[in-house]
């Protein structure tokens, strides 16, 4: 079965209600735009079941980076890490995402875990560690299952692809209590050139974002 069929064995894709405008929806999510690859796999982090729980999005070149983060004072370790990384660099090359443990309220040890994961991935991809950004979601108070994550990285990197399947598998891997995966991409003409914007998201509970 193609990966996309395998992925839909886990959860279906959400209907995306796009506002009207001078754009067309195109397949592909985060891999629709030029230069991006993605992958999702099961790395043994989830407490129950074998739904993919590790996702990776990479860019072939130094990409302009931007971010918006929770204003919750008890911010998770990956949020603190990314804010620092974006302060130190205007570009990034990769985003590593795990589901299962939020790595929030985990203190200094949790922050150290983020550093180790970004260093391990940056070595594999031959990037500067600050070019790797990290997001986590799952149970608060639990440190990430770091050994399982680190052991999965080589396979995750090998799975990277610029296909629709790559985007779809990453969108499934970032979910927690979601009943559907959330992924969309559009194409439009800006200044006479065709550009694409794609994205994926997750979220179903603990939802009242106030990001800045």
């Amino acid at each position, binding site marked *: 079965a193609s990966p996309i069929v395998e992925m839909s064995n886990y959860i279906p894709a*959400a209907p995306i*209600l*796009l*506002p009207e*405008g*001078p754009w067309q929806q195109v397949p592909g999510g985060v891999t629709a735009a*030029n*230069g*991006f690859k993605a992958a999702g796999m099961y790395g043994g982090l989830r407490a129950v079941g074998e739904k993919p729980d590790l996702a990776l*999005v990479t*860019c*072939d*070149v130094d*990409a*302009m*980076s*931007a*971010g*918006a983060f*929770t204003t*919750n004072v008890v*911010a*998770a370790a*990956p*949020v603190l890490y990314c804010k620092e990384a974006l302060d130190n660099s*205007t570009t990034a090359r990769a*985003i590593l995402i795990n589901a299962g443990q*939020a*790595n929030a*309220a985990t203190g200094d040890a949790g922050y150290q875990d983020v550093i180790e994961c970004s260093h391990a991935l940056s070595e594999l991809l031959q990037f500067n560690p600050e070019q790797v950004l990290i*997001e986590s*979601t799952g*149970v608060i108070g639990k440190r990430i299952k770091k050994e399982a994550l680190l052991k999965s990285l080589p396979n995750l990197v090998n799975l990277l692809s610029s296909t629709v399947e790559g985007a779809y598998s990453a969108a499934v891997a970032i979910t927690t*209590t*979601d009943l*559907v995966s*959330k*992924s*969309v*991409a559009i194409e*439009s003409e*800006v*200044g006479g*050139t065709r*550009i*694409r*914007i*794609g*994205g994926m*998201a*997750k*979220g*179903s*509970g*603990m*939802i*009242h*974002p106030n*990001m*800045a």
Partner: protein
Amino acid sequence: TMLGVITTDASVTSDVWRKMVQVAVNRSFNQITVDGDTSTNDCVLALASGLSGSNKISSLNSSEGEHLQACLDAVMRGLAKSIAWDGEGATCLIEVRVTGASSEAEAAKVARSVASSSLTKAAVYGRDPNWGRIACAAGYAGIPFNPNKLKISLGDILLMEGGQPLPFDRAAASDYLKKAGEIHGTVVIQISIGDGPGSGLAWGCDLSYDYVKINAEYTT
């Protein structure tokens, strides 16, 4: 927790990209709510490769800048609405549209206040066209407005106008809610709070027994 990852091949300067992303987040993810709990992990990361070969956008106010902003808003809104649509235990998406405010920010605040109201969410789940709860949630949003200008519609059924409750077909209004729930569709609540130029949107979902069930079991 919500997480977002956005990618584009547009070419844009760092400063403009970071401002654009925050504007789009404010018009999308920061306007959704399921349970009023702001997570420790909420995060949106956005990368622009520039590999489309487009001219580098260096101003928010250029026509290219405004066009890219509109595209970014659309992608983030599409994803944000899918999160609210998939709220734990939800049977339908609730879209709250507010007009007549003095600014976009004020309209957005009123819209999110209504979308966040547990009593409004529970009424939608109970298929109860409870305009009083909608008026109440608009009233405590912290945005001053003349209550005699308040107008509320559920879908295209007018429930209140000029601050006065109107006679309406309760069965039809309840049926509108029921049908949306049956197809996991969208309930639209339209509110006008005056004659100002400001309008805003927020998205939420109805509050069902399942929300409590799911979260009584999902433990730290």
